[in-house]
């Protein structure tokens, strides 16, 4: 078991065109570090120069917006589904 991560189109060049990848991590922050080990450069896309998740990136843990949870510290466990989604959509 591990965490399933859905990758948005703008990042799929870094994941060899894969729309879904798997990772092991204890929280959202750690997940980004782990993804960056497997797919170098992905962290710089998701996070700004201070290491914070960019305001135009939404991350959902089991369909819930991480900003409603514990943000970067939102805990993750095996079987969780994480979706990284550009914020500029809808309306």
């Amino acid at each position: 078991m591990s965490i399933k991560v859905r990758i948005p189109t703008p990042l799929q060049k870094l994941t060899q065109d894969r729309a879904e990848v798997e990772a092991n991590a204890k929280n959202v922050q750690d997940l980004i570090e782990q993804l960056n080990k497997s797919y170098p450069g992905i962290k710089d896309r998701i996070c700004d120069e201070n290491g914070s998740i960019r305001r135009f990136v939404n991350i959902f843990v089991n369909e819930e917006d991480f900003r409603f949870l514990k943000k970067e510290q939102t805990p993750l466990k095996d079987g969780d589904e994480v979706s990284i989604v550009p914020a500029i959509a809808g309306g």
Partner: protein
Amino acid sequence: MGYVKGLKCRECAKTYPAEAIYVCEFCFGSLEVDYDYEAIRKVLTRKKIESGPSSLWRYRDLLPINGEPTVGFYSGFTPLVKANRLAEELGVRELYIKDDSVCHPTLSFKDRVVAVALSKAKELGFDTVACASTGNLANAVSAHGAWAGLKRYIFIPHDLEQAKVLGTLVYAPNLITVRGNYDDVNRLCSEIAAKYNWAFVNINIRPYYAEGSKTFGFEVAEQLGWRTPDHLVCPAASGSLLVKIWKGFKEFEKLGLIGPVKTALHCAQPQGCSPIAEAILSKSDAIRLVRPKTIAKSLAIGNPADGYYARDAVNASGGTAGIASDEEIVEGIQLLAKTEGIFTETAGGVTVAVAKKLIEEGKIAKNQSVVIAITGNGLKTQEAIQSSLGGALEIDPQLKSFEEKVLISSKL
């Protein structure tokens, strides 16, 4: 011919070709259409616009298509109504209603954005269009898409007003109701858009789609006699309309079609879903997400895509924001109807209520010109006011019954 140079990231200015993409690969910023304004300046005049069609396509030189428009030939160019009775009621000198409650064919401003989005989608070679909608967009994509012969997948929250559901189904699209709120629908659609090669008008076609909203601002300026008002009150859901009205005014200014823009742009949101208005009023850096709870379902976006840009446009214009409660929304709908004979939906009730507040608070001076943006039709949200309206008088088909029940009761 068109004047689109390509797409450009609003955050980092990286450029992209004009394809069906919407996000900067490098910083996740929003992509925006980049025009060749020098070339446009050489050809675009007030006279050229005035001799164009009576639709939003009269501004075609400032819209992001390359060939001729193919969808929405009758959309836009809605009335700018001089609202004397409402002006008197609110205590302002010069008041107008920009009335998109009568936009062709689905009675909301979404007919504008969809006319542009579907013309672009066809140009890009798509045969299937889709959207995430709070209702008005669902109506517009379904109707325009039917006319254009496109396959349609429409995603809406499960609890929309009946008229918005029916007013979508009648055009026979694939209508999918999602068990969740609009923000859930939007996330799901972003995931679907990443996997299926469809033209999602407000996702991968969004840079083009959103440009259609500029025409609301263009029309206000043209219909006022090539000037912008001192104040414009605009409802906000994602914030995109407000951003694009401001952009439209600034484009006209840049091209010398109007003088300097001195309009204060005000953001109107409902209590229970006012993340943009709250950020403006509290001068906060961050837009704080909310879980919407309001009767103004067309404004119920808790995570607004253009929230930051809407806040910036309001601040750049010297405007402010206002928030209307459910009760004030219902009063706003009725006030507009009984003074101006215009029946707007709940979003319009928000805008009227907020305009009233801003005038009462002195944020809109009584001797200045004001435009209220009415974006949708009241027949679509009848549930919201049903219990607030008095009933009809019922009589027998006899003169006596009329005199007893109608004349006597109206004398009381």
